[in-house]
């Protein structure tokens, strides 16, 4: 009798731990696919913390340019960027390569990730938004 209630106690503890593990992993990770795509396609340049590289590559964390140019972002990701820009008052004139691999859904996922990572508070972007915004740079 005594050993049975002990067993029950152990099971309860395990259940509670499992619940918390699942709960926290779902809570902290709303744009998981976006983060994975970011790590694969963007992190080399813009870095894990979104602060990029000095005056060579502009930051995404806290970037005013990112928030103000949401309309151009899908085209910029797909076709790259090569014109001088100003981010948070600092000039950049690097070259961001085109990314032809990402699908429209994946572009939406990656945008939602960078719009909300590192304390950013950008808007939610849907698959339809991306499709519509890509119309502008269809060749």
């Amino acid at each position: 009798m005594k050993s049975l209630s002990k067993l029950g106690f152990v099971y309860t503890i395990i259940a509670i731990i499992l619940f918390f593990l699942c709960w926290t992993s779902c809570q902290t990770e709303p744009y998981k696919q976006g983060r994975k795509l970011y790590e694969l396609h963007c992190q080399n340049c813009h870095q894990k913390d979104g602060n990029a590289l000095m005056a060579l590559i502009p930051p995404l964390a806290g970037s005013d340019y990112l928030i103000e140019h949401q309309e151009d972002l899908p085209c910029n990701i797909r076709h790259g960027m090569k014109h001088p820009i100003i981010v948070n008052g600092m000039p950049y004139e690097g070259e961001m390569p085109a990314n032809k691999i990402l699908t429209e859904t994946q572009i939406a996922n990656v945008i939602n990730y960078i719009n909300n990572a590192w304390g950013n508070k950008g808007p939610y972007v849907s698959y339809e938004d991306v499709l519509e915004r890509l119309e502008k740079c269809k060749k």
Partner: protein
Amino acid sequence: MKKILICISLILIYFACAEPEKPLIPLGNVDYVERTENGQTLIDTVYHTVPDFSFLNQDGKTITQADFENKVYVSDFFFTHCPTICPTVKAQMLRIYNTYKGDDRFLMVSHTIDPVRDSVAVLKKYATKLQIETDKWYLLTGNKAELYETAHQHFVPAAEDKDAPGGFTHGGHIVLVDTKKRVRTYCDGTDPKDVDRLIKDIKRLMNEEFK
């Protein structure tokens, strides 16, 4: 009494298992050369060393091994148009730079593997944007074959490859070289934890070399 014994054995186990710091043994082929001194045969251990080179830095000044005399240095290979790992490695090189830039026993050097595009002027612009000082961190360009040979002498792969992103393949290694031009260790410049280890190894090597 029993408890004390358990405690002591736990402490002993801890010290037995704690990873000792690996000695920084020079990398590469080792030669054993015989020589005779006062009628006795002695055997010298000869390690791989980086041969001399002659490149231009971001100010257009010629840099050879004479500029590394009595210095410990780290070395990497990159190109400014690199779409893959280079910015990550540069961000990690900046961490090393910020740790040791005040120490005049230490130098840093980054070699381009794309000398056709990476002229002195291009490297100068890059250095300005990285906000680095020329006499602490050389960005070198020069003869392509010599640059690749220097990479290989540092045990870093580097080659032209039309199918690779950006047109070149190369390793993201950061290599630590001692005052005798021997390669002592290297790290994966894309892995911040491995770079932490290298930062400690630089200090260890300097303590050993400048006793």
